[in-house]
């Protein structure tokens, strides 16, 4: 029986931090991709969280998204169209918040090498033992039929992804 999940690449951010985490030259030999991240960033203003963006193949147009979000006191929903990235799905803990807290995010990208538009699923949390913590379920679409060969995640306010943040990309085969 085929082993379905294979680790393609993993990144652990070093002491200097980084502006983005990039996966390049992703082979087309899998059916789906799954990206699992643990992230902490510098932020803008006195907020304990920040949103990330993610681009595929360096593409900066044609993204849309819809989100279900809860923060412990209520739930809501918002969406974006005509965006420049898969945005506001991946959340992080900001450095102003509780020390040593990192977000957890699961990104599933089915049929990434196929010829259809790229629909992805994101489940994300940034728990911090206080307010400003969110759970987000997101659906995202890139209206582009090119196979995904690279992914880049970055903070939408161009801040730094901090040390000890991790991101691991898995490939999944259905045969």
């Amino acid at each position: 029986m085929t082993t379905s999940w294979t680790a393609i690449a993993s990144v652990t951010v070093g002491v200097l931090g980084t502006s983005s985490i990039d996966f390049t030259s992703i082979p087309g030999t899998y059916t789906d991709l799954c990206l699992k991240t643990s992230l902490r960033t510098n932020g803008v203003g006195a907020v304990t969280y920040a949103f990330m963006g993610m681009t595929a193949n360096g593409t900066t147009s044609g993204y849309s998204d819809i989100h279900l979000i809860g923060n412990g006191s209520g739930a809501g929903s918002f969406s974006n169209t005509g965006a420049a990235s898969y945005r506001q799905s991946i959340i992080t803990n900001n450095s102003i918040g509780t020390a040593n807290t990192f977000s957890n995010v699961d990104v599933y990208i089915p049929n990434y090498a196929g010829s259809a538009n790229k629909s992805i699923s994101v489940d994300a949390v940034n728990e911090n033992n206080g307010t400003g913590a969110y759970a987000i379920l997101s659906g995202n679409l890139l209206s582009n039929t090119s196979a995904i060969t690279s992914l880049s995640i970055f903070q939408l306010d161009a801040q730094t992804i901090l040390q000890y943040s991790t991101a691991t990309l898995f490939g999944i085969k259905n045969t």
Partner: protein
Amino acid sequence: MAIDNTYQAIATQTLGSATTSLNFNSISGAYTDLVLIVTGSPTAATQGQFLQFNSDTSTNYSTTYIYGDGTSAASTRTSSQTGIQIGNLTSGVQHNTIVQIMNYSNTTTYKTALSRYNNTANSTGAQVGLWRSTAAITSITVYLNSSTFIAGSTFSLYGIKAA
């Protein structure tokens, strides 16, 4: 680098033409849980997407939903239905649905399924579904309430072993 062999591909189907429903039959009981990944869209309108197990078309299913439509969040439920609703799909919009079916092969408990669907033209959300049967799940049917899946839609079934 293969990490382990606990998550295994069981079967996959890619539609060559528009199809009303899709079946996985003769599912082995050798796993602990199942994962179903669906991509594609319907040929018409916005459709509910459903699961049935073991060809049971009786009203033995129920579903509880939480979802957001881009403006507000809501939760609802249905009882005594003929299938578990696992998503809402919109024609012309590529979507994905991820379904986890826990402890599917035991013959003691009713079966539950947890799904996540993503449709940027309609809503995103999560559902938990219940099939009131103690039978081991040996087949799965995926269908739409009043449309067909477009050609090129994909359905992949994985098995997860606990040990």
